[in-house]
Each structure stands twice: as structure tokens, then as C-alpha cells.
């Protein structure tokens, strides 16, 4: 099953009620699979093939407000085009779930620019390593987004081509098990008969005299989502037998490691193979997979900061003129510690540039050097 089929299958299992999409490579086949499901009556939801991405986001936003479970998906330029309404989806605290099939803005091939450019819209962002994780993460995303303690939209990022079109075995849970685990979306009615002019319906916007209140509430909601994401990941593991670290980050072979590399999305898979090789050679380095990019797991990284002498962040992005997105967040998390590890920056896989097992091995050796106290360059484009 390809990554896109895994996403479409999860959407079907989640009994989504309103879906909207506009084709763009490499997201397109999700739309096609969903269309087939709809044409065969396998999904009962309303599927709107809209005239552009801006509309797709607004359609699911309004549908979510009206109480429907929703799904939208896009890639690269489409993601950038729908930026504006993404702000109001999240500030209205609507549990929309979106798949972003990464496509770099400078090529068809993937990097994380499309979704990371949306960071300031305040969605939860989860990244996937393989096609099984794509399916599972979509199911978890609905539970997270609709949890009353969260009520935020969730974006699920996975690499175009590398996952979207790559076929590999995926275990599909039964409809019944998903139905049992994921109850229907409970929402506040917007029907005229239920309308209370005194509150004006749901209002998360300004509130009170402080014009900043909307930002404060939204920001806190994201921070408060951290423990809920962990909890839902745990619960998913109990029911379906698969979980992804603690839901925010995952460690791989870090026992006895002196240093770690941090990778996101499909790069983590290749990194695992490199870690196996490095450890087979007696090199004490492990891997941390960063699954939840937003909100950021500051506490996790403080723990890692205590355990490891060097951390190398591999960013499939560059915030131009600033640096790697993950790198900056990790360094920021560690600043208040008395004894900080070395933190190195690697940019890799932008515009879909292939990253090979050997590249990760080299990266690993360099991080280990830094852990030993040797002088190495701070930033590297792999």
C-alpha cells in the first residue's frame, strides 16, 4: 500500500463526513482513492472536489464548525495557497485533520518547507516515517484534534514520492476496532434553534479587554495538547498494538549511547539503518525521532540533554536567514540547563535530494566527534 492509499484508507476508517481536496502532485492519488471510495459507496461522506486549495480549507473549516468530521489534503504550492484560512481554522479551534504530502517549493520532490511555513498558524504538526505510521497517525489525529482538552486542527506531514508513491506492507485495522476506539465527533450545534445570542456561539477569538487574549489562549491550547498527544499514543498502542515512542519523540537504540542524531519523517527510517551499522562498529550513537514538531516537546529534549553529550539535528528544511527549524527549537530547549550538550545542525534532503545510509553514517561520526570534545563545524549541508 502506498502512503497516499494509507492516508485515504484511514480517512475512510475514521468515517469522515466532509472531505475537500484539489489535486497537486504528490498528494493527488489520495484524492483519487477517496473518489473511488465515494463512487463505490464505501464512504458515505460528502466529497467536494473544489476549484482550488483556498476553497478546500475554507470548506472543511465551515463544515467542521457545523459539526462534521473533516479531512483536507495538499502538497507544496497548494499548502502555501491555503495559508490564510488555516489561521482561522486553528484560532476557531476546529478539529480539522489535514494531510500534507511534502513537496518542496523549489522542486516536485519533498522537503518540509510547505508545512513548516504554516508554523505560525498554530496547528498541531505530526510527521510520519513510513506508510503504517501514516495510517495510524491519521486515526490518532482525529482523537487528538477532537479531544475536549485540545480542540485544535492537526496536520500530518509525510514525504512525497518517498512515502506517497512508495508501496510497502501496511496493516489495516478493522472498521469495528476503529469505530470502538474513535467515537463520533461531539460538537456544539450552530443550528439557529440552538443559538444563544448572548455568547454568539463559540468564541475563542478576542475575549475581554486584552487584544492579545486570542493569541494567549491559542498558544496555551497547543502547549496543553502535549500530554494529551502522549496519552492518545499510549492508548492507541494498547488497542492496536503499535505506538510511536511517547507520541512526541521516540528513541532508537539510545541505551548506552553517548550522542544522538535527531531526524524527522522518512529520513528517520534511513537513519535507523545507519545507526545499526554504526553500533555494529561499536560506535555509541543512537537516534531520536521527532514526531510531533508542533507543539514542541521541550521537556523530552531537556531529558535528552542530560543524557547525551552531543545532539545532531537533521533538518529537511531551512528557515532562510535563520537556520534549521528543529535545530533552533532544540537549542532553545536546552538553554536553561547548567551543563549543555553540543548541538550540531545538518540540513539534508531539501528539494528531495536523496539522503543515503552512508550520509547518515558520516553525520553520526561527526556528532560522536563533537561528543568527544573535538572541534567540528557547527552547520553542514549534507
Amino acid at each position, binding site marked *: 500500500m502506498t502512503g497516499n492509499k494509507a492516508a485515504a484508507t484511514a480517512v475512510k476508517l475514521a468515517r469522515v463526513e466532509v472531505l475537500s481536496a484539489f489535486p*497537486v502532485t504528490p498528494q493527488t492519488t489520495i484524492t483519487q482513492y477517496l473518489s473511488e471510495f465515494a*463512487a463505490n459507496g464505501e464512504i458515505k461522506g460528502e466529497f467536494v472536489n473544489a*476549484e482550488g486549495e*483556498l476553497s478546500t480549507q475554507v470548506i472543511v473549516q465551515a463544515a467542521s464548525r457545523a459539526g462534521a468530521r473533516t479531512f483536507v489534503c495538499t502538497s507544496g504550492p497548494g499548502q502555501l495557497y491555503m495559508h490564510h484560512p488555516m489561521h482561522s481554522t486553528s484560532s476557531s479551534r476546529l478539529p480539522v485533520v489535514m494531510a500534507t504530502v511534502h513537496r518542496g517549493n523549489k522542486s516536485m520532490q519533498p522537503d518540509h518547507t510547505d508545512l513548516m511555513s504554516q508554523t505560525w498558524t498554530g496547528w498541531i504538526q505530526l510527521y510520519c516515517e513510513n506508510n503504517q505510521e501514516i495510517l495510524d497517525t491519521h486515526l490518532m489525529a482525529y482523537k487528538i484534534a477532537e479531544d475536549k482538552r485540545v480542540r485544535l486542527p492537526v496536520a500530518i506531514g509525510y514525504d512525497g514520492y518517498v512515502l506517497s508513491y512508495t508501496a510497502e506492507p501496511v496493516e489495516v485495522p478493522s472498521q469495528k476496532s476503529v469505530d470502538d476506539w474513535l467515537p463520533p465527533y461531539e460538537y456544539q450545534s450552530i443550528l439557529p434553534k440552538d443559538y444563544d445570542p448572548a455568547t454568539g456561539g463559540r468564541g475563542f477569538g478576542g475575549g475581554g479587554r486584552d487584544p492579545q487574549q486570542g493569541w494567549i489562549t491559542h498558544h496555551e491550547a497547543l502547549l496543553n495538547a502535549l500530554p494529551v498527544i502522549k496519552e492518545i499514543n499510549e492508548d492507541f498502542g494498547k488497542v492496536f498494538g503499535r505506538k510511536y515512542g511517547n507520541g512526541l519523540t521516540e528513541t532508537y537504540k539510545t541505551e548506552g549511547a553517548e550522542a544522538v542524531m535527531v531526524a524527522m519523517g522518512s529520513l528517520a527510517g534511513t537513519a535507523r539503518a545507519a545507526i545499526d551499522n554504526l553500533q555494529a562498529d561499536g560506535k555509541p550513537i543512537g537516534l531520536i525521532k521527532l514526531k510531533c514538531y508542533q507543539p514542541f516537546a521541550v521537556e523530552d529534549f531537556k531529558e535528552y540533554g542530560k543524557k547525551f553529550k552531543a545532539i545532531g539535528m537533521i533538518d529537511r528544511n531551512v528557515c532562510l536567514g535563520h537556520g534549521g527549524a528543529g535545530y533552533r527549537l532544540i537549542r532553545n530547549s536546552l538553554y536553561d540547563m547548567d551543563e549543555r550538550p553540543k548541538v550540531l545542525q545538518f540540513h539534508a534532503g531539501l528539494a528531495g535530494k536523496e539522503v543515503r545510509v552512508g550520509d547518515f553514517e558520516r553525520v553520526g561520526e561527526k556528532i560522536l566527534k563533537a561528543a568527544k570534545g573535538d572541534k567540528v563545524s557547527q552547520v553542514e549541508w549534507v
Partner: protein
Amino acid sequence: MDELTITPGSACQGCGAALAARLAFKALGPNTIRHGVPCCPDSATMTPRGGGGVFEGGGAALTGTWRALKAKGITDVQVVGFFGDGGTYDIGLQGISAAAERNENIWVITKDNEAYMNTGNQRSSSTPLYAMTSTTPVGSVIKGKQTGKKNIPMIFAAHHVPFVATASVGYPEDLIAKIEYGKTLTGFKMLIIQSPCPVGWRYDPAKTIEVARSAVQTGIWPLYEITDGEKFKLTYKPRELKPVTEYYKPQARFRHVTDEQLAGIQEDTTKNWEKLLKSDELGQLLI
């Protein structure tokens, strides 16, 4: 008239849209600035490109180029958008409509292959009733597209712009004549060229011209021009229309269409044709 497309291009064998590009740019001539938005085939021409190809921004991009030329006192250059139906009918419609309303001195030429072919044949609002695309598949419950084709030329006629016309790759002389006439006009000009796509419409690539011609001869795609939103002229008038089945049958995208559905299409097509004939007689567009 020189060939201005750079060939061979990346289009599939027998691509109608590639022929549309060839004919259109031949007629437009070398004093042309071309804007493209994402679509296939990405026909390259020997004329300069005007912009970065933002899919949703065709009308605005043309406006920017034309206004810059105007500000510099250059008025003899054809500023041409060569878009797909997705770019004109759907994602870019708002901007193109706005440019038409402002009567910008530009061309919007659309190679209409009735779906988003570049991304693998998804429906657009130009996809005709019942056609199978990858987002309007033939399933056990729903079979093909359930709504009809948007009538874009008439929508733009209602903007009262200087020139709106339809064309077909099956009728090159008509296509070229329309562009030559449009070149004499100042203001907004639109040409929609029906451009069969063997891959998406599912027929033998050798039949591209045959399919295009049959669309015209059956009245599915009438050839006409509208000036100033009023003056109407049919530019191809067969004595009698051929039955629509001649157009539908060879295309596998319509394979599932029932006889009853075809009868409905025949009825609508005849009705529309009679209305156009009447407009043609009056020389005045009847709505």
C-alpha cells in the same frame, strides 16, 4: 507564419493541446509575451515568458505585464496567457474575471482538455457531464461526473469584453483567423480551444483531429465569436448536425454512458444549437 513552439515538446503522442499551442503562437507571432500557469503540455515557445506561473494568478500576472508595458508606452505587444481549463475555469477564474471587468489589454487563451491532465486526469469544471476522470470514476454507485460543463465563453461574453471566441484544433484556419482578428482589437480577448487529450479521454492518439472535428460537427463544441458581448457569429455552420453518439462512442471516458443519458445529451445539444442559430441569424447574442 513561423512556427514558434519549440519542438519536440514533452507532450504525449497525439496531444491536442500541443497542437493548440502550435497553432495559437503561429498566429500570434513573435511580438508576444507569454504567461503560463502550471498545466500540461508545458509547451515552450520562442517568445519570452512573463512570469512565475502561479496557478491561481493567471489574470493578475497578465495585468501586471500589460500595465508595465503601458506605463512604458509600449502598446504593440500581445500579452498572452496560455492556460489550461483548470487555470481558466477553476482556480484562476476570479483573477481572470477581474481582468476582464477592467478590460485589460490581454489575451486569455485556454487549451481546454476538459480535466486537470498535468496531475493525471482529475475533473475540472470544464469536464462534461458523465465523463470519467480519476476523481469522477465509474463506481458501483456513482458513474462519472454528475454535473455538466461550465459555459465559460458565455460567462465572459457577459463581461462585455471586446472579443470572446471558441475554437478547435480540428479547424486550424478558423482558429488562426480568430487570433488574427483579435490582434486588431484593444482590450480583453478570450479564446477557448477545445483540445482533445488521448490519454485522459481514452482514444487512439491518431484520432485527435477526428474527435475534435466531431465535437464541432455534432454541436457539442460549436465554433463562434462574440464581439463586445453582443455581436454573435457562428463560424462553422453545418447544414445538419451529426448525432452526438458519433462524438461520444469513440471515447472510452464515456463508455458507461447509457442510451437514455445520450438521448438527454442529444436533446440539450440540439436545443443549444437552435438558440445559437437564432443568435447567428440576428447577429445578436440571445441569452
